[in-house]
C-alpha cells in the first residue's frame, strides 16, 4: 500500500492506521513506526490524523459490573424455559368456551405435572465471584462449587434413574458409590456430569471438573471415569490423569494431570512453571476482575510456588512482588491494572 499520497482524511479512513493508534497489533505498530521514520512528504497529514484519532478514542470504555452478564443470562434463560410455547390463534367465542372447558379439565393435571417436572425437582445453585459453595446431593454425594460456577440438579432421584447434574464453571465431585454387586450396571448406579459439551460418567469417584473459556478439563483423584461428547469416542481416565476437551477444535485428549488441580478447595493455587496469563484467567473467572496488562510480556512469564487465594489483598500483594509489577485496583469497575515496577 502506498501511503505517500494520503491526506489526513484518507488516513482517518484507514483501518490499519486505526489499529496502529489502538496499539493492539505489534506488526502494525512496527509498520507505521518505520513508515514515519522515513520522513515521507505527507508526514504532517499523518501526524494530524494520529493526533485526532488519539483524541477521538479518548473516551473511557464502559463495562458492566462483574456478574451482570451471568445474572442477566439467568433471567433470559428462565423466561425462555417457563414461557410455554403456546401458539396464539384467533378463535370464535364458541370454540373459546369449548377450549376453556377442555383446558380446565386438563389444567389441574397439567400444571401439577409441570410443577413436579420443572420446578419441584430442579434446583440450581450459583456460587458468586470470590465464594465457594458445598452441596449435598440426594444420594449423599458431595459437590464443592468454585467461584462463579453453577450446578443444576434434581432434588430427588428415583431408584432406577441415572443421577445427572449440569455444571457451568468449576466443581469438585465426591460421588457416592452405589454399585455393590457384580451384576451388569443398572441405571440407578450411574452418575453423569454434563459440563460444556462434555459428558462425564462415573460410578463412585472423586474428581475435579473445570469448564471455562471453551476448554473442559476433568482431573481424576480416585476411581474410574469415562468422558466423551456426542461427537467423539469416549475415553477412560485413571487416577492422576486429566482429560481435556477443546470445544473449538472438538478435540478430546488425556495426559498426566496436575495434582494441584483441586488446590482451590484449600484456597490455594499450585504453580509449576505456570504462565502468568493462567493466573490472570483465574482472577477473571473466579473473582470477576478485569485484568489489564500494560506490558503484555508479563503474560508469558512463568512462575513457581503456591499462591494463597483466600484473601484477595494478600494475593495481589504477593503477585506484585513475585512479578515486580505495580497492581492498581479500580474498585468502581473491578479492573486490575498491572504496570511494570520501578
Amino acid at each position: 500500500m502506498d501511503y505517500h499520497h494520503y491526506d489526513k482524511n484518507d488516513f482517518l479512513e484507514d483501518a490499519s492506521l486505526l489499529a496502529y493508534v489502538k496499539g493492539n497489533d505489534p506488526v502494525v505498530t512496527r509498520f507505521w513506526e518505520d513508515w514515519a521514520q522515513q520522513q515521507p512528504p505527507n508526514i504532517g497529514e499523518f501526524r494530524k490524523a494520529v493526533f485526532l484519532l488519539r483524541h477521538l478514542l479518548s473516551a473511557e470504555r464502559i463495562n458492566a459490573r462483574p456478574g451482570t452478564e451471568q445474572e442477566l443470562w439467568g433471567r433470559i434463560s428462565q423466561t425462555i424455559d417457563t414461557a410455554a410455547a403456546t401458539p396464539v390463534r384467533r378463535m370464535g367465542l364458541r370454540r373459546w368456551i369449548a377450549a376453556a372447558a377442555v383446558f380446565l379439565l386438563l389444567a389441574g393435571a397439567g400444571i401439577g405435572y409441570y410443577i413436579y417436572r420443572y420446578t419441584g425437582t430442579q434446583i440450581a445453585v450459583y456460587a458468586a465471584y470470590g465464594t465457594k459453595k458445598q452441596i449435598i446431593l440426594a444420594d449423599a454425594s458431595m459437590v464443592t462449587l468454585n467461584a462463579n460456577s453453577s450446578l443444576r440438579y434434581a432434588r430427588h432421584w428415583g431408584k432406577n434413574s441415572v443421577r445427572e447434574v449440569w455444571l457451568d464453571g468449576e466443581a469438585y465431585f465426591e460421588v457416592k458409590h452405589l454399585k455393590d454387586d457384580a451384576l451388569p450396571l443398572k441405571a440407578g448406579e450411574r452418575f453423569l456430569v454434563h459440563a460444556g459439551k462434555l459428558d462425564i460418567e462415573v460410578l463412585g469417584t472423586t474428581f475435579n471438573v473445570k469448564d471455562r473459556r471453551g476448554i473442559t478439563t476433568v482431573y481424576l483423584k480416585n476411581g474410574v471415569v469415562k468422558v466423551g461428547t456426542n461427537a467423539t469416542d469416549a475415553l477412560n481416565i485413571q487416577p492422576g490423569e486429566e482429560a481435556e476437551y477443546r470445544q473449538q477444535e472438538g478435540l478430546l485428549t488425556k495426559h498426566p494431570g496436575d495434582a494441584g488441580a483441586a488446590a482451590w478447595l484449600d484456597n490455594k493455587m499450585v504453580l509449576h512453571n505456570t504462565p502468568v496469563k493462567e493466573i490472570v484467567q483465574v482472577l477473571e473467572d473466579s473473582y470477576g476482575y478485569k485484568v489489564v496488562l500494560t506490558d503484555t510480556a508479563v503474560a508469558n512469564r512463568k512462575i513457581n510456588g503456591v499462591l494463597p487465594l483466600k484473601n484477595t489483598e494478600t494475593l495481589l500483594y504477593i503477585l506484585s512482588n513475585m512479578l515486580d509489577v505495580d497492581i492498581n485496583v479500580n474498585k468502581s469497575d473491578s479492573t486490575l491494572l498491572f504496570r511494570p515496577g520501578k
Partner: protein
Amino acid sequence: MNELAAEPITWWKSFLGGDKDALSSLYRHYFPVLYEYGVRLHDQEELVKDCIQDLFVKLWTNRSTIQQARDPRLYLLIALRGGIYNKLRPAGIRKVVPYEPHHDFRLTFSAESAYVKKEAAGLQSQQLLQALEKLSARQKEIIYLRFYEEMEYDDISAVMGISVKAAYKLYARALEALRGVLNISMSALLLLLAQHKA
C-alpha cells in the same frame, strides 16, 4: 474492517434450529458490545438490561420466523436500538418513528486517557477535547460506531436508521467542526516539534 467471524454465524444457525446453548454463546459473545452501546444511548442501566433480555427472549420465541443473519452484531445492535426506543416512546403512540432527537449520546472524551497522554500537547489537546465535547449526540454516536466499534458506513446507516449518504454527511460535519481547532493547534504543534528537533 468488516470481518464476519464464522463462529457467531454458526451459533446463529444452530439457535434457529432450536439449540439453546448456541443462543447462550451468542449472548455471551455480544453482551459487552450491546451493554456498552445501550448505556451510551440511554443512561439507565436497568432499562438497558431489560431491553437486552427482551431481545434474546424474542429471538428465541420467534426463531421459526427469523432469517439467518449475515452479521449477527449488526442485527443485534439494530434490534437493541429499536427496543430501547420502543421502551422510551410515550405510551399509546404506536407509530414507529426514527429514534431521534435523543437527549444525549454518552461519549466523554478525556485528557486522562492513555491515548491522549501520548501526545505531549497540553493546550492543543484541551482545545480539541473541548471541541469534541460540543459535538451533537448523533455526531458522537457516529464517531463511536466508526472508531470504537469499527463499523462501515453502510452498517452505521443501518443501525442509526439513516441513509448511507446521510451517514457520510453527518461524519463530514463532525470533522468540519473540528477542522478549525485541528489546523490551528496542529501548526502550533508541528512548529513546536521542529523547534524541539533543531
